[in-house]
């Protein structure tokens, strides 16, 4: 089983990101990590590989420093990694990203000397949260796609997956090759060990450039343009009630709430 996991490096999602003085997202100094949902995807792929057999390759589109995200993946299940340099591709939307990824898939298949059976993506990224790249990639590759899955197993030469729905879940079957996007499963991604980190450091990360992929310029231009950024209006904190005793706190709270006609 040849598996590709697509990973984006994003700012740590537990940090509140506002705008800086020049009106851009204030991500300077924020730790960059592999997108949470991509780490769920990698964990699911790794479990599938362990239960069967296979190899996991990870790919990221990004700047040189996105290699750090790939390295963290190499320490928890992936054995090969490629960085698609985003030089000249900094402003892509999902549509363009899926185009570049689809080209990267063919290129990596050529370099690996094997076709992918499965491509895993996170359900969405924590920075742009569009959730569109996975299904768009499937559409471009002309293969089956299941979004928002929380479990996967092999079945009859294809896959059977558990897809979360608003009311519960679906069991969906599809042939291989296929693209799946992964939601938060019941388990958490594993942590690397000292040993796995050391081993990961030795694995070279090849860089693929836009020129290597023979990209058509009009397809890498974003169809969705960001015309402005703003912060949502700040909500003013009201009163915080913290009296010496619980009874006093409650009495004061109820007084304020009655005054405001809340109840």
């Amino acid at each position, binding site marked *: 089983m040849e598996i590709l996991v697509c990973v984006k490096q994003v700012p740590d999602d537990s940090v509140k990101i506002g705008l800086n003085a020049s009106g851009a997202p204030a991500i300077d100094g924020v730790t960059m990590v592999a997108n949470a949902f991509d780490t769920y995807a990698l964990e699911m792929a790794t479990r599938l590989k362990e239960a069967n057999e296979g190899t996991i390759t990870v790919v990221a589109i990004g700047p040189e420093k996105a290699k750090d995200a790939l390295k963290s993946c190499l320490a928890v299940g992936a054995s090969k990694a490629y960085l698609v340099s985003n030089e000249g591709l900094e402003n892509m939307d999902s549509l363009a990203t899926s185009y570049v990824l689809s080209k990267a898939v063919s290129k990596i298949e050529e370099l690996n000397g094997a076709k992918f059976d499965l491509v895993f993506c996170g359900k969405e990224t924590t920075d742009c949260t*569009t959730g569109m790249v996975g299904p768009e990639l499937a559409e471009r590759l002309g293969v089956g796609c299941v979004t928002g899955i929380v479990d996967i197993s092999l079945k009859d030469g294809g896959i059977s997956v558990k897809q979360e729905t608003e*009311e519960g879940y679906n069991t969906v079957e599809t042939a291989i090759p296929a693209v799946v996007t992964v939601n938060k499963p019941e388990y958490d991604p594993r942590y690397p060990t000292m040993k796995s980190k050391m081993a990961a450091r030795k694995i070279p990360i090849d860089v693929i450039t836009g020129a290597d992929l023979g990209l058509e310029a009009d397809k890498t231009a974003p*169809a969705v343009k960001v015309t402005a950024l703003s*912060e949502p209006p700040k909500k003013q904190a009201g*009163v915080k009630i913290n009296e010496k005793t619980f009874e006093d706190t409650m009495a004061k709270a109820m007084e304020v709430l009655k005054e405001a006609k*809340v109840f």
Partner: protein
Amino acid sequence: MENCIFVVMETENGAVKNVGFEMITPAKEIAAAKNLKTVAVIIGNDVDEAAKQAGNYGADAVITVDAPAYKTYASDEYTSVLTTLAEKYKPEAIFIGATPNGKDLAPRVAVKLNTGCAADVTAMKLNDEGKIAFTCPVYGGTILAENVVETVPQMATVRGGAFKKAEPSETSVEIICEDEITLKAEDIKTKIVDVVKEISEAVNLEDADVIVAGGRGMGSPENFALVKELADLLGGVVGATRAPIESGWISRAHQIGQSGKIVAPKLYIACGISGATQHVTGMVGSDYIIAINKDEDAPIFDIANVGIVGNVLQVIPAMIEEIKKMRA
């Protein structure tokens, strides 16, 4: 039907999901300014009633594609139908609810039509060039991006609860029935073999005036019942953060936040909730927020109108008592 906006209505057992009706509201505003028609598109089975309702909520016309094959959402089938309709009617814009199904459908159609799609739209207006400027939350909602789709149709997925549906009024609307599209076997790539409905309760967080939400700080499923008791007393709906859902205390139909519902009730009571960005982004629009937390530095207090520093297991029962007394 040249010059129209498609509003795609998702149905569940023939009933339209709220976000479908809600999207008619901004579509009509844009349609009025641009001299377009607002056309509801319903792919489903037994959707006559849904089609009539779409008219009552303000659609100028309704296109239905009604067949047993479309009874439940199926990715390959719906993608081909919506793509075919878009190629035939050439809408200026296509709005799709940002539900799990809508977010599965929109990107696939976008690739087929080679167009851009704005995701999780919470507001929209026409800009000076006559294009739609979509507001999309990014970075967990701490930044709002204004997005313009340069290509046509201008596609967007729209968050539930972001727009208010109109007051329905009995209208007779033009209904166009389009034929089912039979896919070649090789074009049906995925097959749903089992549908499990675990979540039977209808949880209507978007329309609630009062939401009482519980977080990890409630401590246990038994204690979580206090949240329900307070909600019932106030005629409200129970909400939750991701933590109690992952612990299995309550179903994910109650989740509020980035991966759950966006809500804006008149009153929101946050019980044992820290105030993580991913949660706050889903409820910060509430008119009045009460937060109960034992940690006086909890970030939830930064957005609360009234913060009560205390143990939820003491504060909620006392609050219930007081409200009962007031009403007696």
